[in-house]
């Protein structure tokens, strides 16, 4: 599968575009890193690529089909930077994880999710534990592209490496395209096969 961004422009204020005519093409075996300083629209680009925001001009195409016209499960899944905001605080983890595709036990084990966490509420888990659930949730059977926006900043180094090791093998096995945003250079070097640099003309 191919994820294409064609001439994407977007601005939060009228007349001020933070993204201007962005072109990206990603194939599903690639691992692309997005590099830019803070406030240059990395997260915005991620949200546009996964169909959360409509760009003011341009299109995001998944195998030639507009991403906003896809009904039901979206093959492009994004993992957000803040896991606490990504889950409904009123639901138990087992109900949260059940919203998407069924997640295999292999994935749960690979991410180090313990069985007794399923009966807890999000408030009873740490940020790192919650983020593992969010990653697992995004790895449903129908996922073809995974967008990871600073997903490991709140994790300690050992957990970080455990999770990335698992994610990289999983992505390679299932031929899932990976788009990564991170400020950590070593991580970027290890993960990304290709980099996209958001540059400014201001």
């Amino acid at each position, binding site marked *: 599968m191919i994820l294409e961004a064609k001439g994407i422009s977007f601005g939060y204020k009228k007349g001020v575009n933070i993204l201007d005519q962005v072109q990206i093409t990603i194939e599903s075996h690639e691992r692309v890193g997005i590099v830019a300083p803070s406030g240059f629209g990395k997260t915005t680009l991620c949200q546009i690529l996964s169909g959360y925001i409509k760009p003011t001009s341009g299109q995001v195409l998944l195998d030639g089909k507009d991403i906003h016209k896809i009904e039901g499960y979206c093959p492009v*899944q994004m993992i957000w930077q803040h896991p606490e905001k990504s889950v409904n605080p009123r639901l138990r983890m087992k109900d949260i994880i059940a919203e998407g595709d069924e997640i295999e036990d292999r994935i749960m084990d690979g991410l180090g999710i313990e069985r007794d966490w399923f009966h807890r509420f999000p408030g009873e888990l740490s940020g790192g534990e919650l983020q593992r659930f969010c990653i697992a*949730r995004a790895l449903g059977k129908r996922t073809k592209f995974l967008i990871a926006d600073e997903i490991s900043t709140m994790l300690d180094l050992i957990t970080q490496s455990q999770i990335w090791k698992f994610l990289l093998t999983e992505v390679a096995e299932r031929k899932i395209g990976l788009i990564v945003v991170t400020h950590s250079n070593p991580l970027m070097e290890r993960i990304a096969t290709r980099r996209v640099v958001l540059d400014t003309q201001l």
Partner: protein
Amino acid sequence: MNNTGSVTVLQKYQRKRLNQRGQTLMYLAFGSIFLLAITVLGTLVGDIAITTNFTQKNFLPHMAHPFGTDWLGRDMLARTLKGMSISIYIGLFASVISAVIAAILGAAAATLGKKVDAVITWFIDLVMGIPHLLLLILISYALGRGTFGVVVAVAISHWPVLTRIIRGEILQLKEANYIKIAGKLGQSKMKIVVKHMIPHVLPQFLVGLVLLFPHAILHEAALTFLGFGLPPEQPGIGIILSESMKYLSLGMWWLALFPGMVLMTAVLLFDLVGGSLRKIIDPHSAQE
């Protein structure tokens, strides 16, 4: 050196007191039972409240008539209970109507686009901008006073605050990450509303509804007191209070004191019930 002493104190403290959640639940139960009792008793007293007995005029409070009797020999306890229950019924009815209006308008403002939102927000500001009592009097007067006038006036002037709350909650929810994510995970709009939105908004709505009661009751009483509300033959709390005005200067203090205290207690209790309910329902303060 004081270690043993402080430990003992701590244990005593823990043994004696309920935890905060238990205490809140107790307030809730106490308030609800008390209000229910007033309502039921007031409904049951029936004709005692309007039966005159000229052999027992102007009695001070004593054993047979704990609240005293008035200038027609009517038992003030029965009248107060009856009046309070009428006020509670009217308050209940009016605040339910108000809350339903608020739910519909709030949801419409949040979901039907910017133009609808602008119109509804404008109406909220309009109704909130007019002095409350003035609006109540105008509506009630225009509808020919009486029970109908009071209920309509209270019902259609109390929705703005709750409408704002519901509108705000839904707007916030629509932007919540987890709801957007649920959509991308293939959940239908209907499922998102049932699973994510209603469980979040419904408790707020219920608490808002309960907290509308005291307002509705007070405003009903005020309206009646000023003569724009219930007819004199119905012993509403407002009627009792306004009639007692004439006799206050004759030293008949019990005619105003006890009904006034019951009204105040009921209003404070409704506030307590609403506040406790909010504390228990809100996950952030449930254990406080």
